[in-house]
């Protein structure tokens, strides 16, 4: 029987690339493609894939909250998180969310097949940097990864995190209500609770909080090189 994979990334270009890469592997099939986290959850519930590959930076519901909600619904889901950064904070959150694989987008062509194979064989797959951090945490006796710079997240419920992301994306309470199938009044209540719990005073504060805690990701303003410059990354 074929291994069934669900892809979730908001860029069709990336989904095309991932799909082409994975379908070359005999015995694997892409059973569905989702363009945001909410759609990914619906499709996963319906299609019951063997592996779900989620991009971290998706609109409406980011990849980390998608992973959390998927595993809350069914702990047997095997999720690989695709990310553009392997910062300590993102690694920690991906592990906390329950991801069993962690692959950098820049290395996806090299690592993703190995990651899916690992999950297929009931193992986990992480980049060398994640492995180093986990090992370092183990050597420090029990603290998987240092939380000294970890964001203060635990007070928000899953629903509040969803509302936070949508408000930080610029949606009005009414728009959030439509997306989440709630009343506007309920959204307003969530909004008040979020602001109170986090001691925030404006939507601007909320946006800053969402960025700092990887609830939304922003595109950095382009650094425009001078005509004679050569940019070295």
């Amino acid at each position, binding site marked *: 029987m074929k291994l069934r994979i669900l892809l979730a990334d*908001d*860029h*069709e*270009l*990336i*989904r*095309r*690339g*991932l*799909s*082409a*890469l994975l379908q070359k592997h005999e015995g694997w099939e892409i059973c569905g493609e989702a363009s945001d986290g909410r759609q990914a959850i619906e499709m996963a519930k319906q299609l019951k894939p063997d592996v779900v590959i989620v991009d971290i930076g998706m609109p409406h519901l980011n990849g980390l909250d998608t992973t959390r909600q998927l595993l809350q619904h069914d702990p047997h889901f095997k999720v690989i998180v695709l990310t553009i950064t392997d910062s300590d904070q993102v690694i920690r959150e991906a592990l906390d969310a329950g991801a069993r694989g962690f692959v950098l*987008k*820049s290395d*996806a*062509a*090299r690592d*993703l097949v190995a990651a899916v194979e690992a999950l297929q064989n009931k193992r986990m797959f992480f980049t060398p940097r994640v492995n180093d951090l986990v090992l370092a945490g183990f050597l420090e006796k029990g603290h998987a990864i240092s939380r000294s710079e970890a964001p203060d997240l635990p007070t928000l419920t899953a629903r509040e995190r969803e509302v936070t992301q949508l408000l930080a994306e610029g949606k009005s309470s009414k728009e959030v209500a439509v997306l989440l199938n709630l009343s506007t009044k309920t959204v307003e209540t969530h909004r008040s609770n979020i602001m109170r719990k986090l001691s925030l005073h404006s939507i601007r504060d909320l946006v800053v909080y969402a960025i700092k805690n990887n609830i939304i990701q922003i*595109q950095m*303003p*382009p650094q*425009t*090189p001078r*005509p004679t*410059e*050569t*940019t*070295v*990354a």
Partner: protein
Amino acid sequence: MAVRILLVDDHPIVRQGLRTLLEGRSGWQVVGEASDGIEALDKVETLQPDVVVLDVTMPRMNGLEACRLIQRKQKTSGPEVLFVTQHDSPQMMREALEAGARGYVVKSNAARDLLEAVEAVSQHREFTALARSPLASC
């Protein structure tokens, strides 16, 4: 005669996605790939593509610089440059056109805009489309 296309992006998975979109089109041929501006300049010399699909942000040499150098080296019969980038910014689009590009497409809309853009620039027509604009201008 086939339109010869060179793909330039530092992410192999993006190149694979671009290839998948372009290869379905008869009369177009992806002749090569490069992962940064310097490699792109070499491949433009050796492969003589008609269209270079170019990313902006890349290591070693970015796409804007590569575009300027391609235009400088191949003044009369050089390839047309089409940027496919994550930068959904009028400022960046202006810079790309000033650098000599014929087209500008945002990655998030590449699946929608890429074929039309390659078609246009291969015929030396301008094609620009930001994600925020509902319609492409051609």
